[in-house]
């Protein structure tokens, strides 16, 4: 059962206010994933305090990096059910968890941060892991 929208709204805004695109429907997710070039990131947001409370600030910190995904979207687990289910279809054989973060390159998932890699870590540690992945996968390729 979805949570009270009033409870969830500040958690949504923690990401949307820094420009993360909210994906509320499966059609939103399809449109977001339609481009198969460049890099993209989907943050699976959640109410879970022990992990999501570190994931959102971690994402905010990571997005201060000069190298970052071309497109950044978010779905809200337990709230936007269809959008979350559709996003997880793009994650392939990765088991569902929330919060979690998926990074794509040219439409293919290349890096995944499951919930257990967020639990017990602070925002800086989450951010450092993401920045490392950004540096690996989001650097624009150059033609030889």
């Amino acid at each position: 059962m979805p949570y009270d929208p009033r409870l969830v709204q500040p958690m949504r805004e923690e990401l949307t206010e820094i420009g993360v695109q909210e994906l509320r429907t499966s059609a939103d997710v399809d449109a977001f994933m339609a481009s198969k070039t460049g890099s993209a990131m989907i943050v699976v947001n959640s109410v879970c305090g022990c992990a999501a409370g570190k994931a959102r600030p971690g994402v905010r910190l990571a997005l201060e990096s000069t190298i970052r995904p071309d497109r950044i979207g978010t779905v809200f687990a337990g709230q936007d059910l269809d959008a979350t289910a559709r996003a997880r279809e793009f994650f392939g054989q990765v088991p569902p968890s929330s919060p979690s973060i998926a990074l794509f390159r040219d439409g293919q998932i290349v890096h995944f941060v499951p919930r257990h890699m967020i639990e017990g870590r602070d925002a800086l540690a989450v951010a450092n892991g993401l920045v490392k992945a950004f540096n690996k996968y989001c650097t624009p390729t150059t033609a030889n």
Partner: protein
Amino acid sequence: MGTFHHGRSELHGITVVVDTRGPKVFVGRCDDLDEHEVILLDADVHEDGANGRSKNDWVREAARWGVWKKMDRVVIPRAEVASVVRLGDIAAD
């Protein structure tokens, strides 16, 4: 792989690996842990050697991706438990 001896307040809500003295190893979200039992939610279990994978192989894969929920809740008697560690503390390949 260090063992935690903390109470519920420490591991409640945390995804853990529960290795047993037998062939089974569990991964799930710790609901409670005391001297009598470990209670996991949204858990998966692997038996050593199943599908050609050792306990360590399976746990390392779980550490990289997570696990698919096969049980809503499982209670593991403490006498069968060899160790309880955070899944996030295990280095994935």
